[in-house]
């Protein structure tokens, strides 16, 4: 037989003692680790605020959105009307609150639909090879190049009273391509990783390889793509409402601006048009912050970049210096972790 006495091996490789309890909560926490940083949390907080308003709007709003107070036309903000009134005496604050629902519903629906399409096409395009992949990629690129807004305008102008679902679908169809392209690239790089090859060599069926082995590794990208699509949908919806292509029966922040524009609110009645735009910007900012958080999770360099630089600056080093000064007491930096450098790859 080939094997001379194997060298006596020590006791089983012991792992560090701190075995965490694997509760469902901690496992959930791991899946959502991408959200556990300052930027994401701030964004989620603002988003949560808007969601609450959308849900509880009926109870929070002081007036109905179309209730007219003929005593107070075009009034500046006052204790009776916190954000003033429109030319018909409608309470601007109430309109904003009721409009939140329209914006969020369409935004998220469009986001969901677009992400489903992007995942279906993008991941498939990344996994298959050859002409199948190329043609799916060409399809994605076509949707990327065709300008969305003109298409939506033309389609939306066809319908008298488009439903929320229709509007969301149209926004989704014009907006999925960006995420689809990113997903294709990621899937392609993932496909050649050894653990996927191992799964194939073990005979895992295709649907399991994609759904169970690949998708969990793509969650951050998918989340980021979803958030990006929601931003685009929100901006698209409010723009369409402002232009007047979407009928005013669907109240959202863009509709408020449409009315403001049509009824001569500019420039004096700032309370009418400024808050709506600010809300759009704020919601967009919240979503962008969430995306930054995800970005930093995916790319750890971004995460620690500022911290490391600050830590070094405290010690008198400037990262962009062209010369590294030789310090007489260079031994002062004994412990690399002083610099805030955490390098997971040094673990063995």
């Amino acid at each position, binding site marked *: 037989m080939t094997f001379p006495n194997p060298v006596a091996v020590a006791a089983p490789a012991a792992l560090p003692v701190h075995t965490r309890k694997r509760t469902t909560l901690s496992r959930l926490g791991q899946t959502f680790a991408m959200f556990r940083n300052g930027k994401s949390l701030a964004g989620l907080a603002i988003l949560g605020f808007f969601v609450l308003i959308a849900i509880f709007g009926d109870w929070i709003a002081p007036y109905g959105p179309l209730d007219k107070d003929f005593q107070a036309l075009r009034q500046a903000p006052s204790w009776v009307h916190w954000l003033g009134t429109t030319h018909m005496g409608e309470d601007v604050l109430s309109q904003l609150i009721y409009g939140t629902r329209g914006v969020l519903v369409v935004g998220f629906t469009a986001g969901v639909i677009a992400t489903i399409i992007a995942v279906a096409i993008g991941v498939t395009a990344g996994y298959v090879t050859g002409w199948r992949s190329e043609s799916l990629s060409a399809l994605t690129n076509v949707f990327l190049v065709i300008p969305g807004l003109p298409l939506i305008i033309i389609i939306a102008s066809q319908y008298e009273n488009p439903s929320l679902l229709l509007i969301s679908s149209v926004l989704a169809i014009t907006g999925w391509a960006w995420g689809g392209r990113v997903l294709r690239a990621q899937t392609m790089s993932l496909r050649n990783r050894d653990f996927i090859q191992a799964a194939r060599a073990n005979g895992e069926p295709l649907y399991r390889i994609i759904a169970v082995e690949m998708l969990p590794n793509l969650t951050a990208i998918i989340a980021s793509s979803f958030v990006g699509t929601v931003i685009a949908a929100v901006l698209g919806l409010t723009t369409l409402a402002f*232009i007047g292509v979407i009928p005013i029966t669907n109240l959202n922040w863009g509709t408020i601006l449409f009315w403001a524009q049509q009824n001569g609110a500019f420039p004096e009645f700032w309370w009418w048009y400024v808050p709506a735009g600010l809300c759009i*910007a704020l919601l967009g900012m919240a979503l962008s912050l969430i995306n930054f958080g995800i970005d930093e999770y995916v790319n750890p360099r971004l995460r620690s970049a500022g911290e490391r630089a600050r830590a070094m600056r405290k010690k008198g080093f400037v990262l*962009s210096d062209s010369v590294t000064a030789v310090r007489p007491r260079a031994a002062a930096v004994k412990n690399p972790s002083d610099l805030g450098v955490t390098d997971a790859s040094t673990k063995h």
Partner: protein
Amino acid sequence: MRFFLRRTAFYAFTAWAAITINFFLPRMMKGDPVSAYLQKNQGRISPEAIDSLRTLFGLDSTKSLFEQYIDYWQLLFSGDLGRSFSKGLAPVTDVIASAIPWTVGLVGIATVISFVVGTSIGAYIGWRRGSKADGIVPVATFFSTVPYFWMGLIAIAIFSTTLGWFPASHAYDKGTQPSFTLEFAGQVIQHGFLPALTLVIGSLGGWILGMRNMMITVLDEDYVTVAQAKGLRPSRVLVNYAARNASLPQLSSFAMSLGFIVGGTLVMELVFSYPGAGKLLLDATTAKDYPLMQGLFLVITLTVLVANILADVAYAILDPRTRQMEA
């Protein structure tokens, strides 16, 4: 060489797809306002005009769909996009041709300025990461999500109506004839300033943030460390090594965002009554001027496609790897 062939094939395919979508668009629309219009204006339209309208809108039900498709392509190649209902039956091509230069000029200049300024600021912030320069990030984030049209309205409200520094609408003073004079150029700049400014500020945020992220990633690469260790001036490392590599993905995301930029400009033109393709489209939609709408969609799509091609070419020139690498 293969690379260029593949890209050309792709763009040809996209152009074909856009034209085909354009072919099907009016046929999917409800009602038949074109026939109604034709009947109302029987005597005033020339037979050729009626023919081209028929081909564009599939009013000729005697021909099969495929035959209509062929006729459509023939029509396009002869440069005929039909007649505009709302512009006194002027040829659509002429109407569009008078508007496109304004849009391309406005968008082109604004986008280039925004890209250059945004990328530079982003590069600088990335370079000086961890310092006070990082404070720009939340500001940039905010501005990147402010809707263009709203900013335009605010800009008008502040700079035009209240302060009176800039005119609020149109590309040049009323009653003036466009001409290649300095005075006219002055008017164009004056009228174009606010819309351009709004476009620039609106898109600046996105470029700054994108570039900052790329810079931070690139600055961690070893070749930057080597450049610094060699003793090169910081400015040289920043520009020639770091920024040069970080701006490549920016260029490709620029190409991807062109469709989005077009959307923003559309509304901008509405707000400022700027006589570009965007405002034309919106007016056409309101007036149910289908030939014009269809023609505009086609032209806008092809313009975006051309811009994409240019961006791709620029990318290929700047990144030697693409010429060797296959996607």
